[in-house]
């Protein structure tokens, strides 16, 4: 916590405000909750998707379906690393004809999202696919952009963006970690 190389950007209140705004933006552009399906990308996309769904349900009434979309097996760098653990994929309703909102914590190279497109294609044919991320840190390597962004956070590639969420880590925080200066 007192690590001088770590700089906290956001706490619990800011994250909550951003998610509330994003939920409203999704509702506005979708014209309500009808036909929506939120899919969180493990690990931290999942609790974020649940929070967005809860805010939407509180605003509009009626539950918004939430699922999990693991993309491990679809990664393009599978061969460059030791065998990775596989996360869960839980899709509560057929995705055909729905507007799927992919939810992740940090958007960086865009490769995770590209893999998510491939994973979605094996599950069906959604009407549209949107992307919601808590933090957009730039440095895209593919032509991908987010539709709903919590915070644009310009970073250098030597920095690390760390998102902590109460459900998994005990507290809410967005922090930037600088590469150890020697």
């Amino acid at each position, binding site marked *: 916590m007192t690590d001088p190389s770590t700089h906290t950007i956001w706490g619990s209140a800011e994250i909550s405000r951003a998610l509330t705004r994003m939920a409203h933006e999704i509702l506005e552009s979708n014209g309500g909750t009808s036909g929506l399906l939120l899919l969180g990308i493990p690990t931290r996309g999942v609790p974020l998707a649940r929070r967005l769904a809860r805010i939407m349900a509180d605003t509009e009434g009626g539950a918004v379906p939430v699922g999990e979309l693991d993309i491990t097996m679809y990664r393009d760098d*599978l061969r460059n690393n030791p*065998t990775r653990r596989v*996360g869960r994929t839980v899709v509560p309703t057929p995705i055909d004809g729905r507007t799927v909102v992919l939810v992740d914590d940090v958007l960086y190279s865009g490769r995770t999202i590209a893999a998510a497109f491939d994973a979605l294609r*094996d*599950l069906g044919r959604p009407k549209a696919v949107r992307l919601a991320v808590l933090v957009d840190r730039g440095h895209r390597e593919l032509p991908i952009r987010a539709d709903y962004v919590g915070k644009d956070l310009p970073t250098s590639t030597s920095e690390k963006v760390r998102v902590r969420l109460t459900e998994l880590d005990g507290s809410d925080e967005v922090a930037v970690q600088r590469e150890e200066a020697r």
Partner: protein
Amino acid sequence: MKGLLSAADLNAHEIESILDVAEEMHTIQQRPVKKLPALRGRTIVNLFFEDSTRTRTSFEIAGKWLSADTINVSAKGSSVSKGESMRDTMMTLDSMGVDAFVIRHSSSGAVAQAASWVKAQCINAGDGQHEHPTQALLDAFAMRQHFRTLGEGGSFAGKRIAIVGDLLHSRVVRSNVLLQRTLGGKVTLVAPPTLLPMGVDTWGCEVSSDFDAVLDEADIVMMLRVQRERMSGGFFPTAREYAASYGLTEERFARLSPTVGICHPGPMNRGVEISSAAADAINSLVLDQVSAGVAVRMSVLYHLLGGADEEGQL
């Protein structure tokens, strides 16, 4: 470590990881598009020197669903029947750039021997009367699911597992004993003295010839097939007498609590080691074992071949 030759090669963490990933793979079976790209570009040869339908098919499906190229070679109709040695066959295929061999052979130890000849990873799909590690893993998968449906955590610690029947000719029993040694299950072996393997007293599990006494204590009863084709006779007087002493008859099944899971690796000899009442019971895990077969083998293939080459291990 290279490949999967024995259930003893796996530590508790690896077993848990294989079973967890298998659970994910199991959901693929329910999807309209049964395909994952994880092993795209990998080549797997199923090399079966002994006949098999369910093991070979499930390995083939497992590889295909993970997008690997799977090729089946059986001893019949291959150069093996022209007199080529197993070593030459394997080295020929290996030099074609195969990533993994799935090997079934009628001789105990043949797969371990084969693994020393080739660069590719080797998976033991049953060697003689020695081992069949993926069968033990899918048994564990079905048992864990059963424990969970009973509302338990899915831990094997202290669970009593009775393995009953033709232990002498079984490769399933040794792999199960080795796997449960790591997982903490308490295995009791039940068989007529003529069908106990040599050195069973060194396996570190209880041995009994009183099925009824063991049955009252068990959480899982695994019945093994009487392997007539491997017997030259003289192991027991008649099938009827065997069934009366060591079969899961209707009478024994009637005494059994419905919380006891009934396993059988198949194919079943109904009326010999297992009655139809038990085989088709609500607490029978026989079909769960079969459906777990593909998922568990997908998981094993993913663990062995899903990462970088030099790191491709469990």
